[in-house]
């Protein structure tokens, strides 16, 4: 899912960086002093979740969970996921430097859209209906991320088109798995801590 330096054309890289900077600025505005600890700890937990490998057939995939991050953090998912990508690039050598912007955009924008579409549905109703909507949101976020990666590759040159299509179809099982995991994560969270979504959103308000 990480795009590396040198693969994309300059307009795509620059547009991605500008859009990501806008999203981060917007997300930072919603982060009051009182919400920073919650956002920081959640950002760290999503980093740790991405270390978890889930078996799928003979191989395994690592979790992204950007849908869940969006559902919990709203616009603050932009800076939170950016921080995760920055640390991955600097200390693990994953991804790249000039593509940080477009990578952030590809992962965080679907997270925010998932929150806008499903956020209210996930936080209300019974835990089970919330979990089902969360599952749909989680699968949607991965699908949108993969599509966004495919689009940024395709926009950089036609030669990437077959690779972009393959990336999308290869990720369909990942979408299903992320959806199921997000659903069960929300099911447990809403049962164990019914006010979880309120606690994160409303801290200090």
């Amino acid at each position, binding site marked *: 899912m990480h795009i590396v*330096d040198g693969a994309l054309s300059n307009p795509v890289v620059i547009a991605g960086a500008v859009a990501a900077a806008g999203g981060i600025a917007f997300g930072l505005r919603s982060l009051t002093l009182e919400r920073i600890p919650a956002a920081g700890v959640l950002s760290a937990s999503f980093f*740790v979740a991405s270390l978890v*490998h889930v078996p799928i057939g003979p191989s395994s995939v690592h979790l992204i969970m950007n849908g869940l991050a969006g559902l919990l953090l709203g616009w603050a998912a932009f800076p939170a996921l950016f921080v995760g990508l920055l640390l991955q690039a600097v200390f693990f050598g994953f991804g790249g430097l000039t593509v940080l912007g477009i990578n952030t955009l590809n992962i965080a924008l679907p997270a925010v859209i998932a929150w806008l579409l499903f956020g209210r549905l996930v936080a209300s109703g019974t835990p089970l209906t919330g979990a089902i909507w969360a599952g749909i949101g989680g699968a949607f976020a991965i699908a949108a991320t993969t599509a966004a990666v495919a689009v940024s590759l395709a926009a950089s040159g036609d030669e990437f088109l077959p690779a972009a299509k393959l*990336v999308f179809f290869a990720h369909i099982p990942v979408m299903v798995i992320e959806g199921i995991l997000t659903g069960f*994560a929300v099911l447990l969270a809403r049962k164990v*801590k019914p006010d979880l979504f309120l606690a994160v959103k409303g801290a200090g308000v």
Partner: protein
Amino acid sequence: MGHTLGPNEKTLTESGAIQVATLIGGLDARVRIIAAVCFGVVVVGLSSLPALLAALIVSLGLLAASGLRLRPTLKRMAMMDSFIIFMLVLLPFTMPGDAMFSVWGFPVSWQGFWRAVEIALTANAVILALMTLVGTLEPVTLGHALHKLRVPETLVHLLMFTIRYIEVLREESLRLRAAMKVRGFRPATNFHTYRSFGYLVGMMLVRAVERSERILGAMKCRGFSGRIYLLQEFALSGADRRFAVLLSALVFMLICLELQCR
């Protein structure tokens, strides 16, 4: 990404860990960040093979000067390559151009081949420079240096919190995994596994939010006002200036090489 960490390896170095005094380790953090960004932007702009090869050699030189252990660093770099190899292998087939040879009737183009080589060289040169120049910083110092470089304070706070709690939360997740393991959980491709991992993530989030409530309480109790207090002042030394001049000269040479070979 988890398999890049050995059983006893930490995700990030803790603050106060002993830093080896090396050529790069003694340089100002701000200089290293700016150098890495400038180098990255220039290398991404290069497209001729000699210039890109030279850029990779500069990165390898930085690696040698940084005192990072060679094998693990190159292994991590190879990990990244294993992710993109799929895309790179496809390129010669999908890019139209002069045929090199054909595999099962699919023509392999020279243009696509060189494009793939170009991407691989760029990606490796940039990420290696980033890891050696910035990745060798103590994570907390990185936050402070970014603050000094006028990165918004809220973003730096977020970064510092993330840095502080990644290792804490990873240990928590390992404890939960150990608890699952002693109860006979073995991951496989089935619904039970996905449900269990979902519960694992959910539990981690619940604990994370509860932890953040305690943190907020502790910070309020100490009168947290949102200011970042630096643990050390940054000051430019002669070595920093020499390094800046040397790297600028190298970057300038890369640009000249690019213009000549184009």
